[in-house]
């Protein structure tokens, strides 16, 4: 699987095309795109800044991709996570998973997203009308990650 941590935007169609090429053995493509949402609780989000731990971020994403490929019969995949300043509507993260089986593709994509939320070293800082604040980690995300450890 391809892992990229970058400040530039990404293009979902280009990523799918790069993964699939002229292959005709793929049955299912599942993608997840995470975007900057303009509301957090009751506050209007004006800007978001994503900080990351260079080197370890890539390493952790590669680790989770490796776990996913061991757990499900996948035919390829791409994970891209951005860092730097972002605006509402901007893309943050992309997961693309190829598999012959739709259930495997859905599971692997959701697993990668859940795991990434709690284990990849990225931190969101939001700027709202009330000032800037670091986004707090959600207990729900931690519980979701643990749910995969059957």
């Amino acid at each position, binding site marked *: 699987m391809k892992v990229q941590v970058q400040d530039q935007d990404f293009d979902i169609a280009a990523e799918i095309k790069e993964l699939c090429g002229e292959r005709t053995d793929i049955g299912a493509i599942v993608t997840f795109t*995470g975007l900057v949402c303009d509301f957090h609780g009751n506050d209007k989000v004006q800007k978001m800044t994503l900080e990351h731990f260079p080197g370890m971020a890539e390493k952790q994403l590669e680790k989770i991709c490796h776990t996913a490929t061991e757990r499900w019969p996948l035919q390829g995949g791409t994970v891209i996570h951005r860092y730097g300043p972002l605006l509402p509507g901007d893309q943050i993260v992309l997961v693309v998973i190829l598999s012959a089986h739709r259930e495997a593709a859905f599971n692997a994509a959701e697993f990668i997203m859940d795991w*990434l*939320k709690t284990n*990849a070293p990225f*931190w*969101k800082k939001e700027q709202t009308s009330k000032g800037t604040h670091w986004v707090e*980690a959600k207990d729900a995300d931690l519980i979701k990650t643990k749910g995969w450890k059957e």
Partner: protein
Amino acid sequence: MELLYFARIREDIGQSSETISLPDTISDVSGLIDHLREQGENYQAAFKNETIIRVAVNQTYVDFDHPLVDNDEIAFFPPMTGG
């Protein structure tokens, strides 16, 4: 020993990294945190609540009882919020 700080912890401390010599008396992450707390109010603020501190030694997550050696790279940061 290289220390790296990210996100809220970086802001509390006021710098993103520093190099220190590991005192002989310190053998694990927990001891290092206690030592850093003595370095000033900014460190005390950064390490106030241990439940929201995560540690990576040489880019691998570890618990607070993880042993340290002087050429380790130690990163401190809050729980992750990417994705």
